[in-house]
C-alpha cells in the first residue's frame, strides 16, 4: 500500500483562484492516481475587510481599484469564465464580501473533527456559488452542519475562538515560508507550487514524490 503524499495548501475562502486551484489539484491527483493527504492552512488576504461590508464583491473591487462598476464586472466575468472551465458556477453578483478570519477558525475546528476537506468545499461553495455570508457565527454553523459537523460544537468553538491561535500560527508559518499569494501548495514538504496551476503540474509533482518515497523505502 502506497503511503499518501502530504500536501499542505495555504488558502483563503475569499480567494477565487483557491477554489479553482482546488479543482485543478483534485484533477491532478486523480490523473496521478496517488493517494493524497491534503491539509488546509489559513491565509487572510484582506484582514482589514469589515465583517459587515455593505455591498457586493464587485462594488468592493470597484471602490478599491477606483474603477467603474461596469469595468469591475467585466473583470470578475473573466474569473467566472475560468471557474466555469473547471465546473464552478461563480455568482460574483451575489458574493457577500466579508472578513474571513472566523471562517478560518471553522476550518481548524473541522480539521480537529476530521472534516476539513468537506468544510473547505462547503465554505467555498457558500461564498462563490450560493451567495452565502461566511463572516458570522450563525452562517458558519449552518455551513458546518452542511459539511457533517456538529452545529452546537462548532458554535461553541467559534464563540470561544478556540482555534484563533491555530489560525495565527498558520499565518505566521506563511510569513516564515515567504508565501505572499494563494493558493500555495507545499508537496511533501519539498516542492512548492504557486497559484492555480494546470492539473498536469500537480500530477507530475505527486507522481515524482510518490516515486521518491517508493525508492526511499
Amino acid at each position, binding site marked *: 500500500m502506497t503511503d499518501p503524499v502530504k500536501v499542505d495548501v495555504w488558502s483563503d475562502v475569499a480567494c477565487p483562484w483557491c477554489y479553482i486551484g482546488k479543482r485543478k489539484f483534485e484533477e491532478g491527483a486523480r490523473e496521478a492516481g496517488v493517494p493524497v493527504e491534503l491539509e488546509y492552512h489559513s491565509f487572510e488576504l484582506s484582514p482589514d475587510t469589515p465583517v459587515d461590508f455593505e455591498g457586493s464583491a464587485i462594488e468592493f473591487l470597484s471602490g478599491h481599484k477606483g474603477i467603474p462598476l461596469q469595468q469591475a464586472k467585466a473583470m*470578475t466575468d473573466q474569473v467566472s469564465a475560468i471557474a466555469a472551465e473547471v465546473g464552478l458556477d461563480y455568482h460574483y453578483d451575489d458574493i457577500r464580501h466579508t472578513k474571513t478570519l472566523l471562517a478560518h477558525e471553522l476550518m481548524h475546528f473541522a480539521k480537529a473533527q476530521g472534516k476539513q476537506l468537506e468544510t473547505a468545499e462547503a465554505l467555498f461553495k457558500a461564498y462563490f456559488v450560493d451567495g452565502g455570508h461566511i463572516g458570522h457565527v450563525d452562517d458558519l454553523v449552518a455551513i458546518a452542519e452542511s459539511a457533517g459537523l456538529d452545529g452546537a460544537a462548532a458554535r461553541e468553538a467559534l464563540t470561544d475562538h478556540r482555534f484563533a491561535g491555530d489560525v495565527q500560527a498558520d499565518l505566521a508559518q506563511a510569513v516564515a515560508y515567504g508565501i505572499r499569494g494563494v493558493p500555495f501548495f507545499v508537496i511533501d514538504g519539498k516542492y512548492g507550487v504557486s497559484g492555480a*496551476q494546470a492539473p498536469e503540474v500537480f500530477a507530475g509533482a505527486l507522481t515524482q514524490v510518490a516515486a521518491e518515497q517508493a525508492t526511499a523505502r
Partner: protein
Amino acid sequence: MSDVRPIPVFTMLPGAGPACEGDDCLPAASLPEAQPAS
C-alpha cells in the same frame, strides 16, 4: 511564534498559476486598457 517550523528548502516548480495577493485577485490580462486621449 514558537510552533513555527523552520523554513524548508523548497524546490519551487516552474511557472506560477493565477493567485491572489492582498486584495488583488485578477489576472494581469484582465486589467483595463488605458483609454486613448480624445
